């Protein structure tokens, strides 16, 4: 059987990063869709209406989700999921599409930024984390919808509008605490020494403008540490270990050597040949 499917996307409103939102919307729509059931006997084709037979879902093998990264100042600063204003002033954009099996489906780099290989690898690690969260959200939403339909409850687009789940022209306002502004301002002026790194309350410059934290520093190193902790917690997930970057030689060399000798068992990925990206250990092709 060969079916032709067309997916139309209507953009109602956006505040930047249409790529990611559109990829999520598209894959959820395809997973949610049900097509009519068909039976073929020799030359005869019967297409059953939804009343005769329950419509059948599409066979979706995996859910690729896009994650976008905006670069500023020649790669010094990195923002995940940029807003409209950040997109307009960014230097470069990197889009990585990945599924939950940590397979990269698409990488696209645009703009005037020259990226280093380890920057791209770090971005792909961030993508893996985000994609896992988003895929879980999608699964839960699809299950809820299926449950609601089975139990005869209300579901669908029309039902989401009154409960304000679909938010066109809605902006969440950030509340700024302007009580005791003068006291706070006085304290800050009195403290002549540089402020500590952890800020308990926002520093209010003028009403309506506040600052939390001390400037923007490149935190590549911190990111690497937190990612490694997460990776260590996932036992038995050898994909996480495969993504360790060049810092492996410093600490966990012993544990790493054992796992590298074992055959790498991946979760229910349907790829036949899997290439795991490691820096400095590129698969060498014969010339």
């Amino acid at each position, binding site marked *: 059987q060969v079916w032709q499917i067309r997916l139309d996307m209507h953009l109602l*409103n956006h505040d930047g990063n249409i790529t990611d939102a559109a990829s999520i919307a598209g894959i959820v729509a395809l997973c949610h869709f049900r097509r009519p059931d068909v039976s073929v006997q020799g030359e005869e084709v019967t297409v059953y209406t939804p009343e005769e037979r329950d419509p059948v879902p599409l066979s979706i093998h995996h859910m690729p989700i896009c994650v976008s990264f905006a670069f500023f100042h020649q790669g010094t600063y990195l923002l995940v999921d940029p807003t*409209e*204003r950040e997109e307009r002033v960014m230097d470069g954009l990197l889009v990585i599409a990945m599924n939950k099996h940590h397979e990269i489906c698409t990488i696209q780099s645009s703009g005037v930024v020259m990226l280093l290989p380890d920057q791209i690898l770090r971005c792909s690690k961030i993508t893996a984390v985000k994609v896992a969260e988003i895929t879980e959200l999608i699964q839960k939403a699809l299950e809820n919808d299926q449950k609601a339909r089975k139990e005869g409850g209300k579901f669908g687009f029309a039902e989401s509008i009154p409960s304000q789940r679909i938010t066109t*022209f*809605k*902006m969440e*306002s950030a509340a700024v605490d*302007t009580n005791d*502004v003068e006291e706070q301002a006085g304290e800050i002026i009195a403290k002549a020494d540089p402020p500590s790194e952890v800020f308990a309350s926002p520093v209010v*410059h*003028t*009403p*309506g*403008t506040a600052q939390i934290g001390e400037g923007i520093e490149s935190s590549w190193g911190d990111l690497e540490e937190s990612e490694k902790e997460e990776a260590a917690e996932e036992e038995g997930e050898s994909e996480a270990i495969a993504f360790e970057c060049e810092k492996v030689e410093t600490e966990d060399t012993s544990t790493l050597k054992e796992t590298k000798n074992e055959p790498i068992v991946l979760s229910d990925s349907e790829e036949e040949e899997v290439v795991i990206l490691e820096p400095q250990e590129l698969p060498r092709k014969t010339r």
Partner: protein
Amino acid sequence: LLCGPGLRRSGAGLLVTKCGLLRHRPGGGGAYWVDSQQKRYVPVKGDHVIGIVTAKAGDVFRLDVGGSEPASLSYLAFEGATKRNRPNVQVGDLIYGQFVVANKDMEPEMVCIDSSGKSSGMGIIGQDGFLFKVSLGLIRKLLAPKCEIIQELSQLYPFELVLGMNGRIWVKAKTVQQTLIIVNILEACEYMTAEQRKQALAKLSGN
């Protein structure tokens, strides 16, 4: 009977092409139109808009006005411009002008002078300031004569304001923080009622 935006004649009757509130103006034979809320701009002849210069192609500048195509602006369409005396326009500059040609079959064309050759406020917008986008309905509200929002804001700080019918607003105040405060208030005016706005402004002017 005048048929305004959102309505179309079909045979003997009228068809509605946009969703929104139906408005009626009784004067001069009567006019009906549909007041709809949207963010996407479609170029209309005679509209004053803010455009961003994206390219210089010989004698003509290409401007991004938020429509489906970039608009073109000739370098002679400025007040006092001659072949020798070219205006100083760079890529990335902001220009306030009006459309002379704007239909769905052709690329829109803009000028920065009116029919008598005077600039009447149009031209290159100065340095600094902040450009941001709002919905078209808010712009129409702000452009209404004796708009309350603008009167209340002017009590707060002095500032310069340019409103483009394509949803773009350019603001400049004395300091960056004052500019950002005005930007935030204008963006929030979409969702705030008049009382909420007055409360917010009272808090700001009190502090």
